[in-house]
């Protein structure tokens, strides 16, 4: 039996069957299943590992259907739509990708089979880079398949063309859905989908996703939610490939107590690169990437082609690295999550993950980047950078063995995103509140949205949502005689379109390489190396050195919106302190780590050095049970330390540190500061906590009581810089503050008002304002991780164990070593000022 006669292939129309046969391929079961679902008009979620032909599975039904339609009807005729003339047919399939580069690559990959089969199908992309003329043409004469991003969809929907462009739509394909839904972009996209379902009733959607913990969340996301019940898309799970081959590096070197550099394993890492064809070296932060890249080149005696890839490098530079990879010219790429998504470049046969894996699902997806043949296992090696990370890696290996997933649950739709969408709708066409409310609730993240919250969002869009009705005459949208909301001026739509989207980057400054200045005059016109966060540069003074774009650079000057740097030869550069591990340790892995520590039999599997470390801890202090919180106190150099080990990630620990120091302050224990890492928190001060606990006028249960999330939290939020940053993001997304203005591009400093000032005023005068509520909701899971802290406090209630020690315990060493390395929190801003002023006095007294 030839392939063509096989029952599987005969399920395909002739040109497709022949195409598969000619290549000696046969369609995979899940690809055919998706075809069947499409024929039955079913929406479906496809869960498949990388390399399973996910993209083709997603597009095959569209290609087949389009071929049948277009062949049957012949060429497209012009038809009247009442208000305009358009071609018959119109847009059939809309594909949305989280990355515009991915959309472009997928279009290219799709064009190959379409050309080879000679299908009468037009495929186009639309991204921020698409020229205006092409966009206009696409509006008049849409392609059959359009590949784009969530932001572009929002843009089209905010024009009067939306109904025309999408009226003929049959299918939506959402790529990398697991990644899209975890952010506000996912909220915005869900609202866009709800709109599409309204414009083109009967469309079906296909979600393509990696394995997730709760597929039902994504299944709900894909289909309109009727009030009160959860509708689900169908589910297809592709056959899993060979289980991955993941190990932890069995290092001969001494494991560091702290730090994230993994320098102890550098030689072993280099040897691994030498032995494999192409190695991806994933790290957690850009500064780690810079450092490891730098160090690998230092020992690169064989001059292996090793490259660097991370999000703040110049785009052209990144594209060059990607191209070199797909040409097979690179031996290794040191990268961050910048390569987590995207098409498959080159023949990667090894993935190394340096440092903590943070989450089981994330690790599995990264390792899936190695070896894209389904029948062979992907090979991954974990390199923990310190002892605690050994525990985390061990926990992750256990999770990989069980194929356990820890992707986050579906978000509750954010109110700032809703506000943006409401204005976008008004820019498209006037709307009735009742209709839009109903439509919005069809989006799974907004299924539980109350009418009063919806109305508050409309009110915010119209006049700012202030209790003091001062801005009626400046309204952005107004109700007409029929009660429909419409934009007050065309300018509103123009400004909306310039500010659409939910990605609010930290303020970045371009880094330009100049010649070192001998004189005062700074040479202009050097090469742009990339961008760094503004706050990082704020910490530098001219002459400081740091590693960026693989080079040691010297900070020369800040000139307008660029930072000028020159090449430096410093031996010990000050490395950029980019935000530490961007993803906090997942709750799931944290649980497993606590389990390993608590269980003697699990500890037996650990490397000798780590096991001994824990044994000494057990002897000197203790190892807490899985649900306990260990608190240690000890004196050291005139100060008293309090250490605790919640294992809840740095963000939650920082918040805990802020709140604990407030309480210790009130208890007159005179706290001086604290430092947090992913596993532990250390607080120190002048008061002896152990003595007060012994005397009984302070209890740990009271110190760690959940009520710290009440008034203490409120008081801290009033001044927290993290909260202000969160508020700024909400204000921008909701459209209160605009990032871009019509006319000349002005710098942010010149035009915008400080959102910190707005935060202060609004907090005092209208604490329940929509934007403050949106910021609080973000703070619960974002930079402050309050939700997780709350869960921890409730878990450990009545389970706090205290050890009063004479000196530092083995478990405490890693976080104690971070003192001085990490910035110390806890001092009120005024004590910083006092210290700076005291310097003056000391100088004066000398």
């Amino acid at each position, binding site marked *: 039996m030839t392939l063509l006669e096989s029952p599987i292939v005969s399920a395909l129309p002739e040109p497709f069957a022949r195409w598969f046969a000619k290549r000696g391929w046969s369609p995979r079961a899940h690809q055919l299943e998706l075809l069947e679902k499409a024929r039955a008009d079913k929406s479906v979620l496809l869960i498949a590992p990388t390399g399973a032909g996910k993209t083709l599975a997603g597009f095959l039904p569209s290609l087949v259907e389009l071929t049948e339609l277009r062949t049957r009807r012949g060429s497209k005729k012009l038809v009247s739509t009442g208000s305009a003339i358009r071609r018959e047919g119109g847009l059939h399939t809309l594909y949305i990708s989280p990355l515009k580069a991915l959309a472009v690559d997928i279009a290219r990959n799709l064009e190959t089979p379409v050309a080879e089969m000679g299908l009468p199908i037009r495929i186009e992309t639309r991204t921020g880079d698409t020229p205006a003329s092409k966009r206009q043409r696409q509006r008049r004469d849409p392609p059959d398949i359009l590949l784009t991003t969530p932001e572009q969809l929002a843009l089209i929907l905010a024009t009067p063309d939306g109904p025309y462009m999408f009226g003929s739509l049959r299918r939506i394909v959402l790529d990398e859905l697991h990644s899209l839904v975890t952010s506000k972009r996912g909220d915005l996209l869900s609202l866009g989908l709800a709109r599409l379902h309204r414009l083109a009733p009967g469309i079906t959607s296909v979600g393509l996703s990696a394995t997730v913990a709760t597929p039902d969340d994504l299944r709900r996301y894909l289909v309109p939610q009727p009030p009160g019940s959860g509708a689900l898309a169908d589910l297809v799970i592709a056959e899993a490939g060979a289980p991955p081959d993941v190990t932890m590096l069995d290092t001969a070197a001494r494991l560091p107590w702290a730090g994230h550099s993994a320098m102890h394993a550098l030689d072993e890492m280099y040897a691994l690169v030498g032995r494999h064809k192409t190695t991806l070296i994933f790290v957690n932060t850009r500064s780690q990437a810079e450092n490891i890249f730098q160090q690998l080149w230092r020992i690169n005696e064989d001059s292996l082609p090793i490259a660097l890839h991370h999000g703040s490098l110049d785009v052209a530079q990144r594209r060059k690295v990607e191209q070199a990879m797909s040409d097979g010219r690179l031996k290794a790429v040191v990268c961050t999550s910048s390569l987590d998504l995207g098409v498959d470049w080159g023949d990667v046969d090894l993935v190394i993950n340096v440092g903590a894996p943070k989450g089981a699902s994330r690790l599995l997806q990264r390792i899936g980047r190695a070896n894209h043949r389904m029948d062979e296992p992907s090979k991954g090696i974990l390199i923990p950078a310190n002892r605690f990370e050994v525990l985390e890696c061990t926990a992750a290996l256990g999770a990989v063995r069980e194929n356990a997933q820890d992707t986050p649950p579906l978000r509750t739709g954010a109110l700032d995103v809703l506000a943006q969408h409401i204005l976008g709708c008004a820019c498209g066409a006037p709307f009735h509140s009742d209709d839009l409310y109903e439509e919005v609730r069809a989006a799974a993240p907004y299924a539980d949205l109350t009418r009063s919250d919806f109305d508050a969002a409309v009110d915010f869009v119209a006049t700012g949502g202030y209790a003091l009705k001062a801005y009626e005459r400046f309204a952005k949208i107004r109700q007409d005689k029929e009660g429909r909301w419409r934009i007050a001026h065309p300018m509103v739509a123009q400004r909306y379109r310039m500010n659409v989207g939910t990605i609010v980057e930290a303020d970045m400054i371009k880094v330009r390489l100049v010649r070192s200045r001998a004189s005062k005059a700074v040479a202009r016109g050097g090469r742009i190396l990339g961008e760094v966060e503004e706050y990082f540069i704020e910490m530098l003074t001219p002459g400081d050195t740091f590693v960026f774009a693989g080079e040691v650079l010297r900070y020369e000057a800040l000139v307008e919106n660029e930072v000028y740097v020159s090449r430096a030869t410093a031996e010990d550069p000050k490395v950029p302190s980019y935000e530490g591990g961007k993803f906090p340790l997942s709750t799931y892995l944290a649980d497993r780590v606590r389990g390993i520590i608590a269980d003697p039999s699990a500890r037996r599997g650990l490397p000798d050095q780590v096991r001994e470390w824990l044994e000494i801890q057990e002897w000197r202090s203790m190892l807490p049970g899985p649900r306990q919180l260990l608190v240690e106190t000890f004196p050291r150099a005139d100060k008293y330390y309090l250490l605790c080990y919640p294992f809840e990630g740095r963000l939650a620990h920082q918040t805990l540190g802020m709140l604990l120091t407030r309480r210790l302050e009130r208890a007159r224990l005179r706290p001086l500061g604290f430092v947090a890492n992913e596993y532990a928190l250390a607080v120190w001060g002048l008061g002896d906590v152990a003595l007060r606990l012994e005397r009984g006028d302070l209890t740990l249960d009271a110190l760690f009581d959940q009520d710290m999330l009440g008034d203490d939290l409120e008081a801290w939020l009033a001044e927290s810089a993290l909260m202000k940053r969160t508020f700024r993001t909400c204000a921008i997304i909701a459209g209160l503050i605009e990032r871009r203005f019509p006319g000349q591009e002005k710098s942010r400093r010149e035009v915008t008002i400080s959102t910190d000032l707005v935060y202060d005023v609004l907090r005092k005068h209208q604490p329940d304002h929509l934007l403050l509520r949106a910021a609080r909701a973000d703070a619960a899971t974002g930079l402050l991780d309050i939700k997780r802290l709350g869960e921890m406090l409730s878990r450990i209630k009545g389970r706090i164990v205290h050890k009063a020690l004479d000196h530092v315990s083995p478990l405490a060493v890693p976080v104690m070593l971070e003192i001085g390395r990490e910035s110390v929190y806890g001092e009120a*801003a*005024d004590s910083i*000022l006092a210290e700076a002023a005291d310097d003056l006095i000391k100088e004066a007294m000398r």
Partner: protein
Amino acid sequence: MNFFERLPGAFSPPSKPEERGDVGVAALGTHHTITVASVTLVADCGGALYWPDEGLLVVADLHFEKGSAYARRGVLLPPYDTAATLARLAGLIAHYAPRAVLALGDSFHDVGGPARLLPGDRATLATLQRGRDWIWVAGNHDPDPAANIGGGFAATLGIGALTFRHEPTRGAEPGEISGHLHPVARVSRRGRTVSRRCFASDGRRMVVPAFGSYAGGLNIRDRAFAELFDDLGFIAHMLGEERLYAIPAHRCLGD
């Protein structure tokens, strides 16, 4: 802990006067005095300047109705800025009970500002003006006298050894007190940076911080300050929660 609380009574840093010019820094409880052209002034950590001998309270750059000025252009900032600014001003007036209040220019964010004052805010302003002199010094945002806001108007004002004007002038006579620049200073210690509004003074002249709730700031390391003062030979008196902190400009960070 407040450094000055540790010392009984007043404290003057025993610096060598000839090196520090005639910069005088002293603190009495929460009062922080700064001497300009031999006149002793009290700088309040609320951002206002008080001249005890004259009973004069000075505030600069109130920028009333900045929120509504933005709203006119479609940026719907919370309309509470004027009320917030007035509330803080009311607190200071209650504390010092000044004979006169001097608003050092840019009291309104734009020419249309006075007309947009909400009735409640207008009433609060009138209450504050009752029983004392009130002078609006002209600013670049509000160059002309306006109706319905009470008080008197002046382009500049000289009182004794001091001259009050909105925009500082290069090479001005000693004793100039001005606003306009919205001075802000930044310091950094152990990885944390704090940025605050400040009084900038070299003992000969002074730039008063902006008082308005929505008024932004200009870093004192900006060239504008170097041109006024002799390079970095001035002190930033940064506003703390309960007191001021005097930091030499050369120790402050740029943006």
